[in-house]
């Protein structure tokens, strides 16, 4: 059964009581929350996702409003089965907190994959991995590409399977910030974007729904294809430049959440991904031009 099969009231009620068991790719998360606005956001962002049998969940999480001594404004807290990995955030950011928490669960516990801090998209059976520091325009680019023929695997976490080097999909909402929210609304009028939250540590944040097809095909893995480091630069023509593979490996060593924990398996997985991928730096200023370059890339 899909989330959309439940009415808002039913969904909110379940989340308040026994919770829901939500599947995203290879992961099942048991979510509970008494907060109605989070229930609403889940209903919207995860409409096409599957609810599974309560017998099993990989992760059990809660988002709630704790009573905290000394804090006069309402807060929200994320709990991983009784363990609290983050400091609380203002109540208004509760859904964003849940999303970060779900990322944290995967990054810290899914050690049958190398988990890289990068977006991953698929085209023609091959994956493009897009690592980028915050503020580089990666999420905007990613949000644009998934409305121009690329399938969303993940916006934040590239999951490289240790057993065969293929990339797994999570097909979860895409985090948009500030001006990119307006840009994507224009670029893709069909995109479903949730409520905007203001005054987060990153400015204004909103969540873009994963396109329905990416959810339907969430069990399809992808072979390695390309690693592209995007950088938005005012006035720059869209251009790919070959990038040192050795330096790319160092970057992954630094930016894969579980690289240290995986030891030699992590090194091998990262090296294999790079070996099998074209590695590029990419500068651009115009989204349409960027899309065109990626089209050419897909054709190679």
């Amino acid at each position, binding site marked *: 059964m899909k989330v959309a099969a439940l009415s808002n009231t039913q969904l909110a009620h379940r989340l308040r009581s026994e919770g829901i068991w939500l599947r995203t790719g290879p992961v099942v998360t048991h979510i509970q929350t008494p907060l109605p606005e989070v229930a609403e956001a889940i209903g919207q962002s995860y409409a096409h996702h599957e609810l599974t049998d309560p017998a099993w969940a990989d992760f059990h999480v809660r988002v709630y409003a704790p009573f905290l001594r000394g804090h006069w404004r309402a807060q929200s807290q994320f709990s991983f089965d009784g363990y609290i990995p983050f400091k609380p955030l203002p109540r208004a950011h509760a859904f964003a907190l849940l999303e970060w928490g779900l990322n944290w669960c995967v990054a810290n516990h899914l050690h049958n994959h190398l988990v890289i801090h990068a977006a991953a998209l698929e085209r023609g059976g091959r994956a493009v991995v897009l690592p980028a520091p915050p503020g580089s325009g990666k999420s905007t680019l990613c949000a644009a590409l998934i409305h121009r023929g690329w399938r969303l695997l993940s916006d934040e976490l590239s999951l490289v399977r240790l057993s065969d080097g293929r990339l797994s999909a999570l097909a979860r909402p895409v985090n948009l910030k500030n001006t990119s929210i307006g840009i994507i609304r224009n670029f893709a009028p069909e995109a479903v974007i949730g409520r905007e939250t203001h005054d987060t540590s990153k400015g204004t944040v909103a969540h873009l729904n994963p396109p329905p097809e990416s959810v339907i095909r969430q069990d399809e893995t992808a072979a390695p294809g390309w690693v592209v480091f995007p950088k938005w630069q005012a006035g720059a023509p869209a251009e790919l430049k070959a990038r040192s593979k*050795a*330096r790319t*490996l*160092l970057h992954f060593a630094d930016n894969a959440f579980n690289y*240290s924990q995986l030891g*030699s398996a992590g090194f091998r997985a990262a090296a294999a991904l790079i070996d099998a991928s074209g590695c590029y730096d990419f500068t651009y200023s115009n989204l349409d031009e960027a899309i065109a370059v990626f089209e050419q890339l897909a054709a190679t």
Partner: protein
Amino acid sequence: MWRIPQANEILLRRWDDEWVVYHVDSGSTYLLNALGGCVLQALRNGQVGIEDLSGQVASCLPADEPADRLQESIQESLRQFMRLHLVEACA
């Protein structure tokens, strides 16, 4: 004589003139230039004296280096690798 200690496991990858080495025991990952990579590569086959080492490194390197300069550079590499516990001197 120089060698990689027996218990030391290192993983090496090479792309063109750049190498990356992973040192299992310390969990450290290093980016190396052609010289460093060739030195470690040569030491993987067992302990080596400095002359043999120079010969192996010379054939591994992309460009030619004058022999005495090469030996000096190799010594410097070995010193750095020793500090990182990647190699050790032996009798």
